[in-house]
């Protein structure tokens, strides 16, 4: 018995053939409550191998050529049938519609920041008793976990290109941070040029760029 494998939510049904999926199954679209889902019917959940992951990425890239917004769904998402899919989407329509609007006409660039040591997190003088200082320290740590000051020298050049950002500090040298940027489709070359032009100013940190990708990091609501 086959199950429904969910690839992505789309802003509209593609005008072209959806093609085949990672299990060579014919892809189809399911319209439910104003949302459009790209699905395939599979007997088994796909294995998370490099080949299959690349195949799923290729499906999303192909669809991005045909529709304005592609909201990737977490790899391996299966539901029993179209009815279960519709029920799953029905309760989340507002946030899914917002997420589709966020990624419409956009793609993702990924920056990784490398270095031998992370910049020191700012340490503010904390007043009060031990409990107050503990809570204030945790607040500072949470804020720091989303900050990547290593990129400050290039932020001015990226400002016109970047619509949204997701940042995560790792602070496990040489990998210090990963930053995902949502940019307009077709502006990836300008984005890379801006990074390349700023490499001297970014030292001692090194930055690698990959992309453009489907907007994987901006699809939390569709996971």
């Amino acid at each position, binding site marked *: 018995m086959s199950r429904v494998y969910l690839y992505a939510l789309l802003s509209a049904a593609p005008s072209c053939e959806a093609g085949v999926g990672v299990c060579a199954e014919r892809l189809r679209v399911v319209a439910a409550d104003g949302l459009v889902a790209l699905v395939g019917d599979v007997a088994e959940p796909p294995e998370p191998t490099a080949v299959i992951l690349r195949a799923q990425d290729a499906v999303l890239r192909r669809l991005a050529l045909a529709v304005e917004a592609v909201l990737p769904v977490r790899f391996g998402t299966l539901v029993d049938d179209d009815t279960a899919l519709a029920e799953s989407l029905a309760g989340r329509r507002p946030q899914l519609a917002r997420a589709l609007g966020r990624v419409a006409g956009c793609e993702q660039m990924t920056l990784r920041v490398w270095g031998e040591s992370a910049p020191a997190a700012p340490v503010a003088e904390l007043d009060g008793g031990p*409990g107050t200082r503990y809570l204030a320290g*945790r607040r500072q740590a949470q804020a720091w976990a989303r900050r990547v000051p290593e990129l400050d020298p290039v932020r001015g050049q990226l400002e016109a290109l970047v619509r949204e950002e997701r940042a995560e500090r790792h602070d496990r040298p040489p*990998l210090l941070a990963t930053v995902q940027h949502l940019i307009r489709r077709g502006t990836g070359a300008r984005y890379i040029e801006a990074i390349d032009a700023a*490499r001297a100013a970014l030292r001692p940190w090194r930055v690698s760029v990959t992309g453009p990708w489907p907007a994987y990091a901006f699809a939390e609501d569709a996971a």
Partner: protein
Amino acid sequence: MSRGRPPIEVRELESLRAELERQAGLADTPRWNANPEDVQRSVARLVLTLVEFVRQLLERQAIRRLEGGTLTPDETEAVGVALMRLEATVRDIAGRFGLEPDDLNLELGPLGRLL
């Protein structure tokens, strides 16, 4: 590759792989292990993960209230001390079972990781 763009070094790729493996490990849902040799540790991991989950939720709520100015100084101190002691207790018990803080992190499915 454009001129001036440094190649990614092997050790950088290894660092990235290690981070991905670490995050993939965090995605493993803690389960009760019926192996008699490991049963105490696996139960402790499961229980402590739930306690840590609740503790972190409370901490985030406290920080939100702190930022919103809805905690008095006395309340801030009391909540901070309670959270601090709870964290120390969880770490202490985890240490007795050979568990690291990362072992108690949670993958929340569609919501992502807690931390």
